[in-house]
């Protein structure tokens, strides 16, 4: 089948996709499109349906209903074409543990009828970091190195769309940061990237995101727009006794809800009666010391929690 010569109007398109495993509805009526060259994030916890969605789009499993296409190729009728041009990095490290770094890369290049040299420029920045270990078996690599190798193998055939299923799960913040740096460079090369992650802070690194929970999308938009649509005011509150503060803030009838966020508590406020001064006075009376209250912009995590509670 000949691919259209012009750019597809959407790199990925999903219409009414649903999938059930026995009684569990893994995906319920999913609709969305990804623009060419976008970094599109699918943000949600374990069990939300991220992996199922990726497996459908990379033609590994069939949806129960609905249609989907990647680069204008239908995931059912044109699955062979899709498999030639997507890159896929699944959630678990799934390269060959007993082959070396170089052997793995060669293997994938061969499977896609290409060579390491042909698209070396694309993977150079990533691969160079592990090249000194090219004779080490993949099974003996550290988590960060495994990631880099898996990414190199997914890129070796210069895919038009890259699917990364939880590439940073279980990985420390340093490696996570590095990894997202690499994705930004890939985007600059025109590759469309779909990445799923349970880490809400990574959402802000995407062009657009879909928040997913229990097989459904809660919202699809740019991170900025999602934050702008947060209902109510949000305050960050601190005191010398954070555990007691959490209990006291929750017991306060005028607050909507309160969640711990590291060294501060985020308090959602809609009641006009509650002002920062009146809250401070209340906390003073409850014997809190060094009280600090500031209005803040919500994070994606705040938004996710609000949306998932509706």
């Amino acid at each position, binding site marked *: 089948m000949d691919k259209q010569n012009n750019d597809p109007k959407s790199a990925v398109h999903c219409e009414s996709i649903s999938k059930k495993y026995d009684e569990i509805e893994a995906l319920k009526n999913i609709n969305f499109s990804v623009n060419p060259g976008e970094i599109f994030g699918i943000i*949600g*916890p*374990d*069990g*939300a349906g991220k992996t199922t969605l990726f497996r459908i789009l990379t033609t590994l499993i069939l949806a129960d209903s609905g249609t989907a296409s990647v680069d204008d190729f239908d995931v059912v009728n044109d699955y062979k074409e899709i498999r030639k041009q997507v890159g896929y990095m699944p959630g678990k490290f799934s390269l060959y543990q007993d082959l070396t770094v170089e052997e793995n890369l060669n293997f994938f290049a061969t499977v896609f009828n290409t060579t390491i040299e042909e698209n070396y420029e694309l993977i150079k920045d990533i691969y160079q*970091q*592990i090249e000194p*270990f090219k004779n080490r078996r993949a099974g003996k690599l*550290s*988590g*960060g*190195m495994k990631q880099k190798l898996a990414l190199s193998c997914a890129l070796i055939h210069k895919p038009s769309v890259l699917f990364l299923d*939880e590439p940073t*799960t*279980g*990985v*420390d*913040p*340093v*490696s996570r*940061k*590095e990894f997202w740096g690499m994705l930004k460079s890939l985007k600059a090369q025109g590759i469309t990237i779909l990445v799923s992650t*349970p880490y*809400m802070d990574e959402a802000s690194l995407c062009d657009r995101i879909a928040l997913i*929970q229990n097989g459904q999308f809660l919202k699809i938009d740019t991170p900025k727009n999602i934050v702008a649509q947060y209902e109510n005011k949000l305050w960050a509150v601190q005191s010398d006794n954070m*555990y007691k503060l959490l209990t006291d803030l929750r017991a306060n009838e005028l607050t909507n809800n309160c*969640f*711990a*966020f*590291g*060294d501060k508590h985020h308090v959602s406020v809609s009641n006009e009666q509650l002002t920062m001064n009146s809250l401070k006075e209340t906390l003073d009376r409850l014997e809190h010391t060094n009280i600090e209250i500031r209005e803040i912009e919500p994070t994606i*995590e705040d938004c*996710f*929690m609000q949306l*998932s*509670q509706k």
Partner: protein
Amino acid sequence: MNNPTQHNSNKVIIAENLTKKFGNFKAVDHISFEVNRGEIFGFLGANGAGKTTAMRMLCGLSIPSDGKGLVAGYDIGTQTELVKKNIGYMSQKFSLYEDLTVAENIRFFSGIYGISPAERKEKQEKLLKDLDLESSKDSLIGSLPLGWKQKLAFSVAIFHDPKIVFLDEPTGGVDPITRRKFWDLIYEAADRGITVFVTTHYMDEAEYCNRVSIMNAGRIEALDTPENLKKQFGAKNMDEVFLKIARNVE
């Protein structure tokens, strides 16, 4: 240090130059630290830093190549079975058996920890009531929502009232609300005097710990309260502290 009655019962972990070598490679390189009773102790480090190897030694699963350690009063080199009996453990990967019911899981783990049937019955009733799971007692674990599973797994891990519970990335991949509810459980346990030793990749969770250690290349590079660490490294949160200290060692 070999006689458990000689140790200070307020120190639930005492590690002295703990080392683990694999051939020439020092995965854990002479680490020394102490953890106090009732503390929430965060054990952080980049991938490959040696955290998992260190934890395995502390849980009695791996004999140190050098150095000594006491956990819950028992020597991790010579009394590994006693160590295992007196600690709790939970990780993201291993918690409860999905194809057993809630009640069956509790019975199974009670047996492993040597709790008598009579005691188990009483504790089980209280546990199910506290967690509001009485009506789910005969449900398969696999059918429970993740949040309930997590709560139950944690409660089972401390069912035998161990002095210390080891949590290996217990909240990995979990939704933000469930994650925080899990930390409520951790706080309650610490309040009751159970020491909590937890590893995590969520830096906001590092803030909830009384003290945090950060491993790098087999060594402990920093150990202090989150507040002091932020001052020491001129960072505004634990994420920044971590980025300043932890480098990938390949």
